[in-house]
């Protein structure tokens, strides 16, 4: 009862007012007035309290989410535009490029990620080979494990696992760093001092990641294939030399390049989304956390969408 009553009051308050006025003006029967009077007394005893976090209907929620989605998409476009403008400024005056910051980002986002990327892609190679081993053994097609591991790692898994790790590692760090700076007024201070935040915070990160990701992907390729080779030897009795021999025939250079080629695109997506969400931070520390989470979820989502689009495009192009 107590839950429904305030809602009822709030909704009916204006309606009741209109009703009372109407009836009063028309000079209706005394009974009606009395009824209204009683109704008003009732309303006074139960004044329409402003609801704690006004309950919205499903339709309202749908509308709100939709508009916020469009708003965010628009803001993202604006952000990309600003970044492109800053990039144009860099290209026009290459002396403005902050190489020190680029190198620093190259180390933190690239070099420092080597162990985790290596370990995870090695394990991925192990898993792929292990899962395939059972099936291949049944048909006596043991040697095809090289095709399986080589193609799947080089074309799909290595770029994807690298992107996912980098999104979790660096994309979140970008959002948190920029978000914290926004909260502590450092971004405002930067503008006031006459430093373009995009030039110092966004472009070096994008540039560094676009350079680092393909290299990380190559590293993931190597470690993934190594994982597959270890599994092929222990489970299927396919030696290292045999495996590599077969892989060289089965996997074309195109497949390798297709995998590497996706990496810079994934890198740009991760860096852009991370920085974008960082700049959208407003308010306090909880906002930093929210934007960081959002940056990781969105960048992984967009990376997988981009990967799917790549698959479609490459199959159309017959690559």
């Amino acid at each position, binding site marked *: 009862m107590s839950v429904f009553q305030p809602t009822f009051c709030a909704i009916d308050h204006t309606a009741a007012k209109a009703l009372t006025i109407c009836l009063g003006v028309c000079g209706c029967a005394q009974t009606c007035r009395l009824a209204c009077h009683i109704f008003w007394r009732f309303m006074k005893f139960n004044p329409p309290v402003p609801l704690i976090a006004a309950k919205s209907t499903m339709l309202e929620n749908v509308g709100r989410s939709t508009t916020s989605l469009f708003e965010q998409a628009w803001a993202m476009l604006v952000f990309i535009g600003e970044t492109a403008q800053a990039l144009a400024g860099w290209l026009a005056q290459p002396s403005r490029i902050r190489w020190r910051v680029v190198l620093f980002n190259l180390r933190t986002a690239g070099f420092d990620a080597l162990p985790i990327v290596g370990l995870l892609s090695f394990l991925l190679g192990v898993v792929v080979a292990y899962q395939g081993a059972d099936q291949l053994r049944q048909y006596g097609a043991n040697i095809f494990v090289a095709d399986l591991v080589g193609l799947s790692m080089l074309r799909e898994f290595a770029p994807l696992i690298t992107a996912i790790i980098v999104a979790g590692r660096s994309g979140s760090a970008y959002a948190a760093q920029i978000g*914290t700076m926004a909260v502590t007024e*450092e971004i*405002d*201070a930067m503008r*006031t001092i006459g*430093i373009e935040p995009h030039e110092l915070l966004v472009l070096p990160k994008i540039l560094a990641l676009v350079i680092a990701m393909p290299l990380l992907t190559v590293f993931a390729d190597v470690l993934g294939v190594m994982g597959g080779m270890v599994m092929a030897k222990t489970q299927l009795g396919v030696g290292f030399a045999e495996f590599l021999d077969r892989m060289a025939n089965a996997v074309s250079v195109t497949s390798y390049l297709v995998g590497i080629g996706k990496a810079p695109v994934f890198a740009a997506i991760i860096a852009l989304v991370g920085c974008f969400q960082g700049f959208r931070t407003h308010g306090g520390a909880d906002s930093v956390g929210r934007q960081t989470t959002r940056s990781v979820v969105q960048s992984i989502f967009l990376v997988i969408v981009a990967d799917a689009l790549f698959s479609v495009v490459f199959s159309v192009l017959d690559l």
Partner: protein
Amino acid sequence: MASSLPGVSTSDSASADAPVIDIRELSTRFGAKVVHHDINLQVRRAEVFAIIGGSGSGKSTLLREMILLHTPSSGRIKVLGVDLKDLSRDDALNLRLRWGVMFQHGGLFGSLTVLENIGLPLREHTPMKDSQIDKIAAEKLALTGLKPEVGAQYPAQLSGGMMKRASLARALALDPELLFLDEPTAGLDPQAAAGVDELVLHLRDQLGLTIVMISHDLDLLWRVSDRVAVLGDGTLQAVASMAGLSQLDNPWITPFFEGARGHAAQAAAHRALQPRETPSKPK
């Protein structure tokens, strides 16, 4: 003065007593919410101009509009003789280098030491050598009353008061003509706040800076402000000296002076010094 920047309209005659900041018919809206409505105010050269008002009265927004961090919905703002509307990138940069801003929370860069923070504007915009920059930064540090060893520390290691002083030192790095202070004494203990009073007076009297500040600190306002603008209900309620304001009967102003804190500050101000000027200019 000052309208000598390239590409800047000099339609108004640039005389010595032209206002440093000239705001005309300024309105600001966030969506349907009106923050400012038709605000007109001028800040004169070498005065301490304070902006007060309740929370949500748009003080900070007004300050952000003056320092090119926010664009008003309509109206005109001229700072140092330059119209802030549609500034080119280079003009905006030139203008930004002529003022300094001390942010409420300091806005110091966490990844740089205090000395590097102070030297950053110089490093970015002047061809000076590092040794020279460090020397100037150390001077500014001393000017704001910080010990030299603070220079090697990181902002996270500083207390609130030290952070504000360091932020002020950075704002002064490029020897600005105009200084903006956002709540210079908020969150400081009374002793540290008194230090800020001295500092502000010193900057105005010794360096001839024009200072615009947002503050709620009655002690500070009584001691240092030449004129105070009161924002309330989206409009400018009054511009006057503190003494002038205390005589006004205005629902937005009177509460400010009432209560024990207000009386204490007023009494202290009367004891300590006579207000320097009393022309009141109620709107």
